[in-house]
């Protein structure tokens, strides 16, 4: 599955490579969105793809997200494999009707006849002083849409393999990319084509004192907290969910049962965030093992603040994760 050679890439480069490989491999793959063509995307994720694969397969759309999703759905109906980019995850909102009413329902409403292999990529999350409404984390909205999958990678090498798997798959997938990791996360990425399975959570650090659970941009935050805790002699387990839907409940529950203590970390607004679903699954499936409250570390119940001097108070930090950890450990 994994190619031989590897080089250090950041997330932008890894995703760019995945798109390039997918375009090479399958003529039905199309890449489109606002500014993805000549400009190569506002984050340069699609840089060079139009020049290489042509304007027919990598193209700019008019500024209309519902149109972009509708176009993707229709193309997939007709047999193509569209990979659409939405410029920022907060701009998925105008497309939510297409997503909630259609993207995830066509297979069900056509009783299996019309499946939609659509991938929608969008940068999400905060931490890098983006303008107002550019730092939203809407994964919970997507996870509550029937029939779609939601994947959020935490590193370049995972991103590449997961994206290729998403494009290969038969179902619609939202692929959310933490803006903070675009250039902030660098790692060895295998060359060539490889896929990583969707629907599997990963234990990215072992530990028996407690279990930290999160995904995407929060994985490095959890690992940082775990590092600090380890210096104090406390070894905590860290779980990267990677795929939110379909959720790998088995791995999640196993990880919590092992330690009996769980902290759930996400950067969206706390109420109604996907961390609620994680906590709910734990409260049902691991109750007999729990020795402490399931604590959520999340954005506050307010919009992500566009106020750069204080925005870091909103997005969960290692310090906040450690405070939560202290709470579950001293309970």
């Amino acid at each position, binding site marked *: 599955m994994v190619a031989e050679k590897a080089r250090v890439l950041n997330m932008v480069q890894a995703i760019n490579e995945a798109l390039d490989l997918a375009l090479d491999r399958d003529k039905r793959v199309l890449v489109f969105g606002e500014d993805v063509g000549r400009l190569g995307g506002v984050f340069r994720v699609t840089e060079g793809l139009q020049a290489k694969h042509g304007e027919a397969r990598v193209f700019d759309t008019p500024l209309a997200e519902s149109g972009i999703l509708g176009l993707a759905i229709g193309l997939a*109906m007709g047999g193509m494999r569209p990979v659409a980019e939405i410029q920022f995850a907060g701009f998925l909102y105008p497309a939510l009707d297409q997503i909630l009413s259609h993207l995830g329902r066509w297979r069900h409403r056509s009783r299996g006849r*019309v499946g939609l292999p659509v991938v929608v990529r969008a940068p999400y999350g905060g931490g890098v002083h983006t303008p107002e409404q550019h730092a939203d984390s809407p994964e919970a909205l997507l996870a509550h849409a029937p029939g779609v999958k939601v994947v959020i990678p935490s590193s370049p090498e995972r991103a590449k393999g997961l994206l290729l798997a998403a494009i290969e798959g038969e179902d619609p997938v939202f692929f959310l990319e933490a803006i903070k990791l675009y250039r902030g996360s660098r790692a060895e990425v295998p060359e060539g084509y490889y896929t990583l399975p969707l629907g599997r959570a990963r234990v990215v650090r072992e530990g028996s004192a407690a279990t930290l659970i999160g995904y995407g941009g929060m994985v490095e935050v959890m690992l940082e907290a775990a590092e600090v805790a380890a210096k104090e002699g406390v070894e905590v387990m860290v779980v990267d969910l990677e795929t939110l839907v379909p*959720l790998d409940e088995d791995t999640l529950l196993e990880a919590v049962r092992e330690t009996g203590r769980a902290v759930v970390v996400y950067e969206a607004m706390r109420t109604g965030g996907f961390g609620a679903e994680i906590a709910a699954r734990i409260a049902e499936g691991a109750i007999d093992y729990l020795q402490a409250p399931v604590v959520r570390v999340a954005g506050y119940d307010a919009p992500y603040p566009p106020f750069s001097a204080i925005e870091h108070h909103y997005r969960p930090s290692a310090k906040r994760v450690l405070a939560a950890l202290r709470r579950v450990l001293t309970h």
Partner: protein
Amino acid sequence: MKPKVVQYLDKGEFPLGEGEALSLYRAMRRARFFDEKALTLQRQGRLGVYAPFMGQEAAQVGLALALGEGDFVVPSYRESAMLLARGLPIHTLLLYWRAHPAGWRFPEGVRAVNPYIPIATQIPQAVGLALAGGYLGEGWVVATSIGDGGTSEGDFHEGLNFAAVFRAPVIFLVQNNGYAISVPRAKQMRVDYIARRAEGYGMPGVVVDGNDAVAVYIEAKKAVERARKGEGPTLLEALTYRLAPHTTSDDPSRYRTREEEEAWRAKDPLLRFRRALEERGLWDEEQEGELLAQLEEEFARELALADSVPEPQPEEIVEHVYAEMGPDQRRAWEALRQGKHVEEVW
């Protein structure tokens, strides 16, 4: 500048071959027959909520028959006539309106997708479907349909603009029947004709007398031809009227007058077309009688077929959510299959 309303029948023009004309009439008559039967079945509790199309047969069938075999229709909930004309079996359509899952799976080969309920969402999807045909070298044309009310939605705008920009081979049929449920045209928009919007997208906009089957058919043919030649989309507005309620749950006497209804009944597209055929000696009482007998027989057969489909099973609820069932669906499926709910089998 007032767009002209394309009209043939009242002007006594009839530029159709006999075969074409008769196919068109038969398909319209068959559709009307279905609509009447469906309304009866619904009253008997043998269909669910039903959206009749009576009065709009010329628009729907005229467009459907203007398409080629490989072309697609992307209908809204009111397009049963269009679906029938595209070859959707009657029993499938009955099962659909019976809210039976078997009515949701259209047979392979039927170049029509399931009807859309959320208004206007089909418009950008139709554009994507049309472009797919180009990528795959199959060059199919897509005809999609929307009501006057639906043109107020954002998706209508986004879809038409996309179609123009990408020169997609799409025909956007607006069945302007003057009402969005109870809301009359004048409260939906401040223009006389929706086709006035076409110019703003850079596509042709054509207004036809939607109760004139010849006009719809001819103009639809032209639009299909343009699309097939790579000249892009057309907005085709058919002025028409629904002679029945919005759905079987609706009571139109609350929002429109009997006089208005009667005036439109006089313009019934089926009768107008039949009259034209009769005037030209292409149709008579006897043929009509034969056709009705055939339709009666066909319908009885199809209804029996629909009735013979077993009741759906509870576990079908969680089937076809993903290509492969996820763990959450699997758990529910196992339970439902045993005649239980998931709470009973933890």
